[in-house]
Each structure stands twice: as C-alpha cells, then as structure tokens.
C-alpha cells in the first residue's frame, strides 16, 4: 500500500499498451483504506473533482 498523500492523486498505467489508464486516490488513514480508481470520463464527478484539483495548479504523481 503506497498511495500518496501529497499530491493525493497518482496516475496508473495499463500493461498492454503502457498507456495511462486512470488516476487513483486513497481516502482514510487506517484499514480499510478506500482507494478510488477514477476514469478519464467528463461526466464522472470524481474526475471533475480531479480536474478542479489540477486547475488549482496541482500535479498528480506519475505512474510507476
């Protein structure tokens, strides 16, 4: 379990084409952790929240 707390988002890659496929966010500081894997879909409100966070000048941690 190695999710960032600052920045709070981390990009993820899929293994077939090696492309970034989602952005993850961990909520909570004890088990069970809640981990969100957010698709790049404009109508998704978690993605809207992520975009607002980026618009504030933040950058997600790069994918491994």
């Amino acid at each position, binding site marked *: 379990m190695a999710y960032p707390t600052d920045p709070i988002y981390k990009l993820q890659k899929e293994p077939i084409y090696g492309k970034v496929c*989602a952005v993850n966010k961990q909520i909570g500081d004890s088990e069970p952790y809640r981990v969100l894997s957010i*698709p790049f879909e404009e109508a998704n409100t978690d993605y809207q929240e992520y975009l607002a966070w980026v618009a504030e000048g933040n950058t997600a941690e790069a994918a491994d």
Partner: protein
Amino acid sequence: MSDIRFEGWLHRSGTGGVYQDSAGNVGIASTQPQTRLDIGNGGFQVGPTGIATVTTINTTNLINGTPLTNRNLIINGAMHIAQRATSSTTSGYGDVDRWQHEYAGNDEAPTFAQVSLTTSDTPYTLGLTKAFKITNGNQTSGLQATSQINFMQPIEAQNIRNSGWNYKSSSSYITLSYWVRASVTQEYHGFVKTADGSNYAYPFSLGTLSANTWTKITKTIPGNSNLQIDDNNGAGFQVWPVAFYGTNYTNDSITENAWAAWASGNRSHDQTATWWTTNDSTFEITGVQLELGSVATPFEHYSYGDELARCQRYFCKAAEKGGSDHSVALGANYSGSNAFIHVTFPVTMRTTPTLDQLTGTNYYRYFSNGGYETFDDMNSLDTATATPEGVEVLKSGISITQGSAGFLRYQHASAEIRFTAEL
C-alpha cells in the same frame, strides 16, 4: 308510465336539483350545464362526444396530468436502500442510497443513519417502514456562521427535463412532499435548486414543527422562465428537504416560495439555533416524493428490487462483503504478472464509474492454475475499455501463468469492490 319533459329546473332544493337547458343539456346541481351531462358545474362532465371528464377525484388525490405510474422523480424516497452502510458520519454519500449529506462548522460530527419505524409512527401506517435520521453532535460552540448540516438528492437533468413538467411555465407545477419528525420544536427550512446554466433556487419553510411529532410537508412549485434544465445525464435539479445553516448561508430578506437566482448566502431565512445547540437532537425524514402536478398524491411504493435497480445506476458492487473465499468475478491472465478481472454491472450506470475499493492487508486473493496470489488491493480500472455497462479491473505484480483463467475472491470481511457514478 308517461314521459317527464321539462326545461329549466325540474326540482330545486338549495343548490341541488336537476336542470335542463333549451339545447337538452342536463345539469345536476349545475345551473349552466356545459355538456350533455354536467354535475356540479364542471365537476363531472359527459359529452357531447361521450367522453367523461373528471376534474378532480379528491378521495385519491389523482388529478388530470398526474401520471399513474413512475410518478416519483426521487429515487429511494422511502429510504429502503442502503448499499454502503446503514449508518455513517461521512460528509458525502455514506449510507442510504442517492442521498448526500454534508456538515461543517461543528464541534462533533453528526450521525446519519437508516432507521426502522414502528407501528406508532404515522408514516409506518402508510407503508413507510424506514426513515433517514440525523442525530446531531454536541455543538458546544453554538451555531456558527459557517455551520451547516444538509441533506440532498441530486436528480439527473434528463429525468426532470422529460418528466412532463413545463419548467419554463409559471402555470405548470411539480409537487414535493415528505414526512418529517424533529426532537426540537422550532421552524425548519429547505429548498430546491436547479443545476444547469444560471442556477435558481426556491427556498421554503417547513413551518414550526412540534417536537417528536410526524408532520407531512407539501410544497407545490411552479415553473419559471429563467430555469434551465438540460437533456443530459448531469445533475439538473437538487432537492434539499431540510438544511441547517449558520448566517453565511442565510438571509432574512429573501422571499420564500419563489424562484430567485442562486446565491450561496440566500439558502433560507436566518435559522433558529435551538436544534443545533441541543446535544443529540434528531431530525427524521421519509416518504420523499417529487411529482408532476399541483397535488401531492399518496407515496408511490416500489418493490425492493425495483428501487435497488434505480439506485444501482449510481452505485453498485461487484459482490457484497462476505469474508474469506467470497466470490467476486472471473479474470484472464494477460501475462505472467497481469490479470484483467471483468465486472459487468447489474444495470447501465449513469456514466463510466469510479472503481471504489475497500483495501487492506491481504484483502484479496486471485486463484489460477491450481494456486493463488494474495494481495491488498486492485491496481486500477482501464479507462480505455470501461463503459457504463462494465469494466476491466487490472491486477498487476502477481505471479500467474499467461493464458490461463482465474477467479477473484474477497479474503477479508471488510474487502469490497464497488463502482460509483453518483452526481
């Protein structure tokens, strides 16, 4: 037997009697019959084409234009469905489906819970056996300017847009009704709000509720030419049946029961602080219905399965929690270290959802080729292949045999894979 022929009153007693005009139209308790048969000056009419018209059936509250089925635009208005939990202190979605709550400016978090009603509760006698209950914390600092506890359901714009409500017309109505009970006697407030274009709000008072007494709230809301409600799957309309606010959010000069341009500081009149400052005060609500027309009809009950399916458009699970070796889904081993787990949703979701998993040490186990790998969490979903109908969930960094199939199980009582497409 001889014919009885007459013009004018056959017999009249008070406002009753039978009347026939020169055209042969007959009225009962109706001095100017407008059709072949007219009872009560238009209350019930037949003809001249033989079509009966009933303007109001008061015994059932059905009126012209009220749909007979699927009347309720609110989902889970009976508070029956609670897929996430039956109780939480979450700010957001945490318990009963489709209902979002927030709090701020408080000393102790409130508790939000689904509760069961009993035969002594008025809604129970109407078939409403569950309610949503807010239990306040101990707010020793009093009602601060930033204080708030609210309770809200956002509705997909296309569901309002296509409901039959002519929301641009001040003579077209929707009606909001629900049951409430508070532990403290005082005035309470709520509002509805649009969420497309320039937002507009319609604040209202619930009146002064008597402590520990169930009261039915009914608000008939007209359309307004300024409202914008799009034909899409975004949030278009919000229902806030009750909201507690400090003065950052209130304004005593606003007009209740009228549409006005949305301003965060104009959500209600200034609020009495008694409920807020009473430790463990409670507020319960159930039977929330928003429907086309100007009359609140009896609550439309759905079966558990039907209501669950409505909720699953916004939140569903790959499988319920179940402890060790609880089946979740099948997978395919793409390589020696990567497996894709395919999950098909029970209904088409509002949009491509977020994978929302509960994780921890050794929460999950993937079986393949006569062995298994145990791990803490799934890596992610794959946007490129995800749809509102289903997704591929990726698990990387495990040792498996390429080309084989596998299956995923929960391995811990708290493990759970969910999908959320809430508004």
